[in-house]
C-alpha cells in the first residue's frame, strides 16, 4: 500500500489532520474499508487511522450516554436503555462486532443500491446527536440530519439523553448471521407516550426518522416517510408490504404491558 498513514494520538489532532476531509480516507474499524482496498475499489492516498485517537470510550453519566466513534459495536451491547443493544447484537457476527465501530456504522458511505448503518434506527429513536468535525469546524446535530446530509465529515461521538423511556424494536431479518436487515423499526417514547421518536433502517441508503408516524401514530404512514429500495436483501415491494406491520409491532411494544 502506498498510502501515507496518519495516526493521531488525540481527538484534537485527529480533527486537525482531517481538516475539511479533502483527500483523506478515514480508517475506523476497517470492516468496510479493508475489503474495498482488497478488490482495488478504494485506493487511499492519505489514510487517517483513528485507533490511537482516544475516541473509543463510552461514558454513561446520570443524564446522558456518550459513545465515542471508535467504540466497537460489541461494546454497545449493554449500554443503558436497551434499544441500541437490541439492534447491535444482530449486526454481522460477534467477531466482526469487536472490530467494527459505532462511528463507522454511522459514517458508512450511503450507496444508492445498498443499505447499511443498522444502528441508525435505534439512535434516531433515542434522539441521538452526532458530534462531527469537517468543513466549517465542529458541530452537533440530530443524527437524522447528519445521515441525510452530505456526510463528508469525521464523526467524533454520538450522544443521547437518558430519561425514563419505553422502547419497541421490530425487525425482519434473514435467519442467519451477516445479513443486513430487510427492515428494522425502533420506537422510543416516555412512559406517558410523549416524545415519540421512530427510526427505520434497511429501507434505503440511510436510516430515516418517521415523522409522519410520530404525528399520526398510524403505522401505515411509514410509507410516506420512507422510499424503500430494491437490493440483494429484499425487494422494495416486499419492504413496503412489511414495514407497516413492523411499525405497528414496535408501537405496540410501547404500550404498558
Amino acid at each position, binding site marked *: *500500500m502506498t*498510502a501515507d498513514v496518519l495516526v493521531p494520538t488525540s481527538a484534537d489532532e485527529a480533527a486537525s489532520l482531517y481538516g475539511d476531509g479533502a483527500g483523506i480516507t478515514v480508517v475506523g474499524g*476497517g470492516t468496510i474499508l479493508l*475489503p474495498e482496498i482488497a478488490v482495488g475499489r478504494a485506493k487511499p492516498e492519505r*489514510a487517517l487511522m483513528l*485507533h490511537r485517537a482516544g475516541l473509543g470510550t463510552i461514558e454513561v453519566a446520570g443524564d446522558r450516554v456518550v459513545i465515542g466513534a471508535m467504540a466497537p459495536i460489541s461494546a454497545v451491547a449493554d449500554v443503558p436503555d436497551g434499544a441500541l443493544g437490541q439492534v447491535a447484537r444482530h449486526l454481522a457476527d460477534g*467477531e*466482526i462486532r469487536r472490530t467494527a465501530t459505532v462511528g463507522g456504522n454511522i459514517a458508512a458511505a450511503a450507496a444508492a443500491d445498498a443499505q447499511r448503518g443498522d444502528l441508525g434506527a435505534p439512535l434516531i429513536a433515542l434522539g441521538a446527536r452526532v458530534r462531527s468535525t469537517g468543513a466549517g469546524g465542529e458541530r452537533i446535530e440530530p443524527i437524522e440530519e447528519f445521515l441525510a446530509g452530505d456526510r463528508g465529515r469525521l464523526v467524533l461521538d454520538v450522544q443521547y439523553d437518558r430519561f425514563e423511556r419505553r422502547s419497541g424494536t421490530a425487525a425482519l431479518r434473514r435467519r442467519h448471521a451477516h445479513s443486513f436487515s430487510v427492515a428494522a423499526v425502533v420506537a422510543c417514547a416516555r412512559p406517558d407516550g410523549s416524545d415519540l421518536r421512530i427510526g427505520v433502517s434497511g429501507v434505503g441508503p440511510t436510516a430515516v426518522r418517521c415523522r409522519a408516524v410520530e404525528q399520526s401514530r398510524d403505522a401505515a404512514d411509514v410509507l410516506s416517510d420512507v422510499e424503500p429500495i430494491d437490493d440483494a436483501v429484499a425487494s422494495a415491494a416486499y419492504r413496503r408490504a412489511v414495514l407497516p406491520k413492523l411499525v405497528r409491532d414496535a408501537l405496540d411494544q410501547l404500550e404498558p404491558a
Partner: protein
Amino acid sequence: MKLIVNGMELDVVSPPLTPLLHVLRDELDITSPKAGCQQGGCGTCTVLVDGEPRRSCLTAVATVDGAAITTVEGLGERDALSPVQAAFHRHYAAQCGFCTPGMVIAATALIERAGGPVERDDVLEALGGHYCRCTGYVKIIDAVMAASRGEVEEIEDVPVSVAGEPEVQPKGSPA
C-alpha cells in the same frame, strides 16, 4: 511494529494498513488463517487477538501493534492436540479442512470464555459467522460441545491384526 504470534515476539515490517491476515500469511508464512473472502464474510481468517476471536482480514495490522496473536499452529501439534483440535478430529468435523482453522479458533475462544460445557445455542452464536460448505455443520457443533465437556478420546489408527488372533471386527457404520 511488533506482534507476539503464538508466543513468539516478532518484528513486522508490512505497511500499517495491511490486513493482519496478509501479515501472517505473506510476511510471516503462517498460513493457517485463510483468504476465503477477504471481506469478513466467511470466517476462515479468524485468529485470536489478545484472546478474542477477530477477523484478521478486517484488522489493519497497525491497530494490533504489540498484541498477542494466536493461530491454530499455536494451539497444539500432532502429538499434543488441544482438546478442541482433538475433538474436531475425533468427530470428523473437517472434510476439506479449509474452514477448520477458523472454526477451531472460534470454538477455542468460546470454551475458554465459558469455562465449562456449552449449549448448542452458544455454539451457534459463537460460530454463526463461519461458513462450512462440506460438513453440514452437525459434526462441528458436536465436536465443540464434546470439547467443552472435556471429552477426550484416543484417536485410533487402522486396526492391525496380530498373527494367531482373530481378524479385527468392524465396529459398525461410521455414519
